[in-house]
C-alpha cells in the first residue's frame, strides 16, 4: 500500500519533505517538513499538512512554510509551524504567534541532589501546591490595579523583581531580559486587562505545570554546564506557563480586528484564523504593541512562580537562596 502522503509530499532527503506550490492554488512558496519517514507515519494527518500549505499563502512569506518534527494540528497555523515574512511587504499574523502569547518554559537549577530531595518529595510537592496558585478558576495571590497592570505590560519581569519577587540574576538569564520593547498598553482592550488582573501569578490549567526533575543523562556536557547543569542526579525545576487569559484575549481581539484588515488590504486567505495585516500598517503595528504587552505579562507571571517555588524549596530544605540560579 502506498504511503498516504504519496503524491502530496516530495521527498528531498531522509529528513526533508516538500509540499510543492501546485498542491494548493494560492501558495506562493513551497511547504517544507522536517521529519524522518517513520516520524511522518506518526504525524501524518492531511489536515495538518493543509495548514502548512495554507501558511504559504501569507503575503511576503520568505523561502518556505516550515514544519518542525513536532508538527500537529493548530488553529489556522499548525503547532510547530514556522514562517518568516519580509518587513517591507510582508504581514504579521496573530495566529502564528499563538493564543497563549509567550507561552514557554523556565528551567531553574538547584544545588540539591536526588538523594537529598527524594525523602522530602511529598512535603516539597505539597509546599509547591500551596504556594503556586494553579488549576481551573484559580486566582492569583497578588491583586494589581489596572494602572499597575499597565506597568507589568511595559516593564515585564523587572516589575516583579522591583516588588521583591526575585533577584537581579533571574532577569539576566531570562530571554530578552524579561521585557520586550515597544509594548503599549493603550493597544490592549479593557476586556483583556480585566481577564489579566485576577490571573497574574497563576500557573493555569491544561498542559501547564511545575515539575521537579532530576538529571539522568547528559548529552552535551558543555551546553549543560553553560546552564549550570553539572552532574547526574542534580535536581532541577521546570515551569511551563504563559500569558493566561490575558494573552488569549489579546489574540482573540486581534484575530477579529485583523480579519477586517484582511478585507481592507485585499489579502486572500484559505482560513480566517490566518487573519493578518501588513507589518507596516497601523493594524500590524498595533498588534505588535499589544503582543509585546502579553509577552511581558508572561515573563512576569513566570517570575512570580519562580519566586514562590524558591520559597517552597527554602521552607523544606532550609537552604539559602544562593543555592539557586
Amino acid at each position, binding site marked *: 500500500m502506498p504511503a498516504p502522503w504519496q503524491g502530496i509530499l516530495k521527498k528531498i532527503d531522509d529528513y526533508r519533505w516538500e509540499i510543492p506550490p501546485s498542491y494548493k492554488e494560492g501558495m506562493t512558496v513551497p511547504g517544507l517538513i522536517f521529519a524522518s519517514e517513520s516520524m511522518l507515519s506518526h504525524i501524518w494527518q492531511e489536515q495538518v499538512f493543509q495548514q502548512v500549505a495554507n501558511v504559504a499563502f501569507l503575503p511576503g512569506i520568505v523561502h518556505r512554510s516550515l514544519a518542525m518534527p513536532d508538527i500537529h494540528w493548530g488553529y*489556522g497555523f499548525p503547532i510547530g509551524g514556522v514562517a518568516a515574512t519580509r518587513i517591507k511587504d510582508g504581514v504579521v499574523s496573530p495566529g502564528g504567534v499563538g*493564543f497563549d502569547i509567550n507561552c514557554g518554559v523556565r528551567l531553574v537549577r538547584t544545588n540539591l541532589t536526588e538523594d537529598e530531595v527524594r525523602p522530602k518529595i511529598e512535603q516539597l510537592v505539597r509546599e509547591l501546591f500551596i504556594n503556586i496558585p494553579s488549576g481551573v478558576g484559580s486566582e492569583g495571590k497578588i491583586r494589581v490595579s489596572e494602572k499597575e497592570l499597565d506597568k507589568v505590560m511595559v516593564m515585564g519581569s523587572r516589575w516583579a523583581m522591583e516588588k521583591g519577587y526575585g533577584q537581579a540574576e533571574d532577569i539576566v538569564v531570562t530571554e530578552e531580559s524579561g521585557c520586550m520593547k515597544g509594548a503599549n498598553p493603550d493597544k490592549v482592550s479593557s476586556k483583556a486587562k*480585566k*481577564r489579566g488582573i485576577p490571573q497574574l501569578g497563576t500557573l493555569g490549567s491544561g498542559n501547564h505545570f511545575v515539575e521537579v526533575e532530576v538529571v539522568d543523562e547528559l548529552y552535551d556536557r558543555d551546553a549543560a554546564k553553560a546552564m549550570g547543569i553539572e552532574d547526574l542526579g542534580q535536581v532541577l525545576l521546570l515551569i511551563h506557563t504563559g500569558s493566561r487569559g490575558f494573552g488569549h484575549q489579546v489574540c482573540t481581539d486581534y484575530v477579529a480586528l485583523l480579519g477586517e484588515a484582511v478585507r481592507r488590504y485585499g489579502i486572500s486567505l484559505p482560513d480566517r484564523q490566518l487573519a493578518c495585516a501588513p507589518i507596516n500598517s497601523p493594524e500590524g503595528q498595533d498588534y505588535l504593541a499589544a503582543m509585546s504587552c502579553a509577552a511581558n505579562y508572561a515573563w512576569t507571571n513566570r517570575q512570580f512562580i519562580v519566586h514562590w517555588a524558591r520559597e517552597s524549596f527554602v521552607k523544606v530544605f532550609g537552604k539559602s537562596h544562593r543555592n539557586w540560579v
Partner: protein
Amino acid sequence: MPEKDFEIIDHTADVGIIAYGADMSQAFVNAARALFSLITELDDVEEVLHRDMELTAPDEENLLVEWLNELIYQFDTESIIFKRFDIIHLDSTQLKARSYGEKVDSSKHKLKTGVKAATYHMLKVDKGDGCKVQVLFDI
C-alpha cells in the same frame, strides 16, 4: 431531531461540542449549557444572579463564537458559572440574552476543565431540519 440537547466530541488536545435545538435560539442555549457542563457539574449550580449580554457579529457562526467567548469571559473575570439562558432576541447578526447562574464556590463546585476560548475551527451552524451547531474549544 436527536433526543439529547448536546454531545461532547474529543478532538486531539481539544474538546468540541455539538448542540441541537428546534431553532437557532435553542441550539445556542444548548451550546452554552454544553460549555458550562465541561467546566463543572451543572446540577450543583444555583440561579442566584444574572447577566445581560448584547452582541453583534457579521454572521451566525461568528455570533456563536462571540456568545460563547463572552460567557467564558464572564467566568474568567467574575467567576460566574451559568446554567440557564434566556435568549431574548437572535437573528443572524445580533444576539440579546440573559444568563442565570452563580459565582464559583469551591466548597460545592468541583471545577473540571478550564476552557480558554471558543475557536473558529470546525465551526458550523446548520439550520436544516431543526438546528445543529458545532464548536471546538481551546482548553
